[in-house]
C-alpha cells in the first residue's frame, strides 16, 4: 500500500517536472527578445564605448526593475535603448511590461511589491501614487537633467505640489489634421494656417467635391469599451482654441464648471464640423455614423479619396496599411490643426512619464540617464517614437510625421497641454466624458445637456 502511494507520488512529480520544462520552454520564447539584447552588447565588459556613461558611475550586481505598458516590439526597442547604459554601469535592468499595468500597479504597490520605477501612460495616476506616499521624488542629478532638457509644460505634468516625480520619456501630439498631399496638389488646395482658412477650405472642398458619399471631413469615435475618446480629444483641441490654455487648465482641474459657457462654445465649435451634414462623414454616412465608426477606419477614407480632412493624433501613422506613402509629397500626411490666428499654437499632447518608487543610487543614475538627450536620441534612432526632450535631434526621428511632431514639441511658440481626459478623475475622464460626447455625436443630447451631465458626474 505504502509503496504504491510512493510510486504514484514519484510519477506525479516526474509528470510535473515535464510540465515545468515545457512551460519554461514556452516562456523562454516570449522573453527571448529582451534578454538576448543584453547578452549581445559586449557582455558587461566596459569598452571604449563606455566613455559617455562614466559620469553615471558603476553599480556592479545591482538590479533595477521597471513596470510599464510598453509591450511587444515597442518594448524590445525600449530595452535595446538602455542596453549600453546597463552594460557600462553594470546595472541589470528588468523590464516587466503588462497590458493591464494600470490596475496591476496599484495591487503591486499597495501589496508592498512596488517595482523600482514605472512608466505611467497617464500622469493622473502619479497623483494617486503620491497620495499613498509611494513615489519618491527625482534624485538631484535626474532633476537637474530634467530641468535642463524639458520644457515647463511637459515637466508640470510630472509634478505634484511642486515636487518633480516624473520625467516625460516619450510623447505624441494630438493636434493634427491628416490630409492627402497628392490630392491637395491636384486641386490646388493650400494647407490652412488659421481656423478661418481651414473652414474656408472645408467649404471649398464641399463645393468642389461634395456629394452624398464624398464629404470634406471624416471622423470616427468607436473604440470598444473606450468609445468616445477621439471625440474628447477633438473637443479638448477646441477648448484650447476657443477659450485658451488658461481656461483649459481651470476646466481640467475643475476650477470652473465642466459646462462653463466657454466650454459649451468649444463643444459647439467641434459640432460646427462634426455635426454639419455637409462636412461629415466622408465615405461612411451622416454625422451620427461617427459614433459607430472605429476611429482609425474613418481616417483610411482619406486614402480612398472619400474625405479630405481627418483630425487625429500623430500615432494614426501606425494604423495606416503597410506600404502607404506617408510624407509631405506622399499619399497621406498631417498638418497642424490651426488656431484662430497663425501666431497662436496650442498643442494637445500625451505622453509616458517615468517615475521612481525607490531612491537607491542605481535608480537615480538610471533616471538621470533617461532624462538625458543622449537617451532620447538613442531611442529615437531605434525608431517609432519621439521624445519631448529639447535636446532631441529631429533628424534622428524615423518618419516625416515624427519629425513634424518633434518640430512642434520644440517650437518656442507652441503651448503644450496634456490630454485632459487623462488628468480628470477616471469616472469622468474614462467614463461620463466619453459616454456623453458619444450621446452628443449620436444626436441624443445638445452640447449643453451633454456637458451638464458630465458636470453632475464629477465626484
Amino acid at each position, binding site marked *: 500500500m505504502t509503496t504504491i502511494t510512493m510510486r504514484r507520488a514519484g510519477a506525479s512529480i516526474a509528470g510535473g517536472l515535464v510540465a515545468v520544462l515545457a512551460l519554461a520552454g514556452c516562456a523562454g520564447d516570449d*522573453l527571448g527578445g529582451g534578454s538576448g539584447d543584453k547578452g549581445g552588447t559586449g557582455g558587461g565588459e566596459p569598452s571604449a564605448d563606455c566613455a559617455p556613461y562614466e559620469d553615471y558611475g558603476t553599480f556592479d550586481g545591482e538590479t533595477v526593475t521597471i513596470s510599464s505598458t510598453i509591450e511587444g516590439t515597442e518594448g524590445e526597442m525600449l530595452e535595446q535603448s538602455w542596453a549600453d547604459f546597463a552594460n557600462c554601469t553594470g546595472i541589470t535592468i528588468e523590464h516587466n511590461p503588462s497590458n493591464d499595468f494600470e490596475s496591476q500597479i496599484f495591487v503591486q504597490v499597495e501589496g508592498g511589491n512596488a517595482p523600482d520605477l514605472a512608466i505611467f501612460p497617464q500622469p493622473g495616476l502619479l497623483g494617486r501614487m503620491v497620495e499613498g506616499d509611494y513615489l519618491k521624488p527625482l534624485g538631484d542629478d535626474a532633476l537637474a537633467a530634467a530641468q535642463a532638457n524639458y520644457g515647463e509644460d511637459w515637466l508640470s505634468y510630472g509634478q505634484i505640489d511642486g515636487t518633480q516625480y516624473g520625467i516625460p520619456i516619450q510623447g505624441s501630439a494630438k493636434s493634427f489634421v491628416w490630409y492627402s498631399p497628392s490630392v491637395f496638389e491636384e486641386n490646388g488646395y493650400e494647407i490652412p494656417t488659421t481656423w478661418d482658412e481651414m473652414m474656408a477650405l472645408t467649404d471649398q472642398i464641399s463645393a468642389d467635391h461634395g456629394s452624398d458619399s464624398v464629404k470634406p471631413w471624416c471622423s470616427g469615435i468607436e473604440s470598444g469599451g473606450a468609445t468616445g475618446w477621439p471625440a474628447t480629444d477633438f473637443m479638448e483641441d477646441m477648448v484650447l482654441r476657443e477659450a485658451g490654455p488658461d481656461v483649459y487648465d481651470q476646466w481640467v482641474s475643475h476650477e470652473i464648471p465642466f459646462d462653463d459657457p466657454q466650454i459649451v462654445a468649444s463643444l459647439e465649435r467641434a459640432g460646427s464640423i462634426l455635426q454639419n451634414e455637409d462636412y461629415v462623414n466622408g465615405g461612411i454616412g451622416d454625422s451620427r455614423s461617427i459614433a459607430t465608426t472605429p476611429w482609425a477606419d474613418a481616417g483610411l477614407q482619406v486614402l480612398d479619396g472619400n474625405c479630405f480632412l481627418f483630425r487625429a493624433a500623430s500615432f494614426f501613422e501606425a494604423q495606416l496599411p503597410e506600404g502607404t506613402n506617408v510624407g509631405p509629397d506622399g499619399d497621406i500626411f498631417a498638418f497642424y490643426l490651426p488656431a484662430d490666428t497663425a501666431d497662436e499654437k496650442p498643442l494637445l499632447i500625451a505622453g509616458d512619464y517615468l517615475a521612481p518608487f525607490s531612491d537607491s543610487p542605481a535608480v537615480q543614475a538610471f533616471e538621470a540617464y533617461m532624462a538625458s538627450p543622449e537617451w532620447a536620441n538613442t531611442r529615437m534612432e531605434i525608431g517609432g517614437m519621439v521624445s519631448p526632450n529639447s535636446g532631441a535631434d529631429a533628424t534622428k526621428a524615423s518618419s516625416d510625421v515624427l519629425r513634424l511632431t518633434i518640430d512642434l514639441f520644440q517650437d518656442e511658440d507652441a503651448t503644450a497641454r496634456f490630454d485632459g481626459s487623462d488628468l480628470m478623475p477616471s469616472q469622468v475622464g474614462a467614463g461620463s466624458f466619453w459616454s456623453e460626447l458619444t450621446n452628443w455625436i449620436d444626436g441624443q443630447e445638445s452640447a449643453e445637456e451633454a456637458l451638464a451631465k458630465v458636470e453632475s458626474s464629477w465626484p
Partner: protein
Amino acid sequence: MGFFLYSKNGQLILAVLAFLAVLAALLLLATAVDRVRGRKQTFLMAAVFGGPALLLLAVGLIYPAIRTMWMSFMDKRSDEFVGFDNYAYLFHDGLQALGNSLLWVVLVPLGSTVIGLVYSVLIDKSRFEKVAKSLLFLPMAISFVGAGIIWKFVYEYRGAAQDQIGLLNALITQLGFEPVRFLQDAPWNTVFLIVVMVWIQAGFAMVVLSAAIKAVPTDIIEAAKLDGANAWQLFTRITIPSIRPSLVVVLTTICIATLKVFDITQTMTGAEFKTQVLANEMYDWSFTYGDNGIGSAMAVVIFLLVVPVVIYNVRQMNKNKAVR
C-alpha cells in the same frame, strides 16, 4: 533570489516548485494517515483529501464573497462606512443597466430554449441529424468576444449613399430599403445584441434537449399514438412533460450565464447607446473608475439576482437524479 522574484521564467519555476512541494507534502501526509488505524482514520483521511479543497473554497470563494459584501457598504477606497449610499446610487443612476439586464435575462433563455427545442424536434431521427446538430452547436465554440466581433460586422452600418459592408444592411439595401443602424438605435439595439447571445446558447439548449427527447420511453409514445394523438398533441402532452426537468435546467443555466454577460456589450457597442448591462457597469466602476464601493454593490446585486436561480437549478438537478 532576484531570478526567482523578478524574471518571468523564475516566477514560473517558483510557482511550479511551490505547487509540487504542496503536492508532495499532501501525499506524504496521506501516507502517514494511511498508517493510522481505527475510527480516527476515516476522519483524518477525509481531512487530508477534503481539507485542501475546502480551504481553497474558503479562500477563493467564501472569503471574497463576504469581503465584496463588506466593501459594498464602504466608500471607493474601502476606508469609511457609507451605509446604503452605493445601493442608492445604483437604483438612482443604474436603472438603465438594471432594465436592460432584465430584458436579457428574459429573452436569452426563452429564445435559446425555444429555438433549441424546435430545432431538436424537427431534426430528430432525420437523415441529416448529426450534421444539423453540429451546425447549430458550432457557435458554442466561439468566445463571446469573438462572437461580438463577428456580429458587429454583420450589423455594420454605412450611409445610404455608400456601399454597405455589413451583411444584413447589404441585403436590406438590395431589397430597396434604407440601411438600418442596428447597434445605434435604442431600444432595438439591445435586442440585436441579445440575438448574438441566443445564437451562442441555442446550440447548448439543442444538445441537452435533443438527448432528453431521445430518452422519452417509446412505449408512452406508442400508447399515445394508439389512442389517436396527433403530432401536436404528442409534442405538448407527451414530449414536453417528459423533458420538463431538462427544460428547467437549460433555462436556468442560460439565465445564469446571461446575468454575467458583459463581453458582448463591451465589444459591440462599448455599452453606449443605452445598451448598458449590470455586469458591464460593475466592471466599469470597479476597474475603470477604481470605485470599489459601487462596483461591489453591483456585484452583490448580480449575486442576489443569481442566487434564487441557482437554488432552483440545483434542486431541479437533484430531483432529476432522484427520478433516475
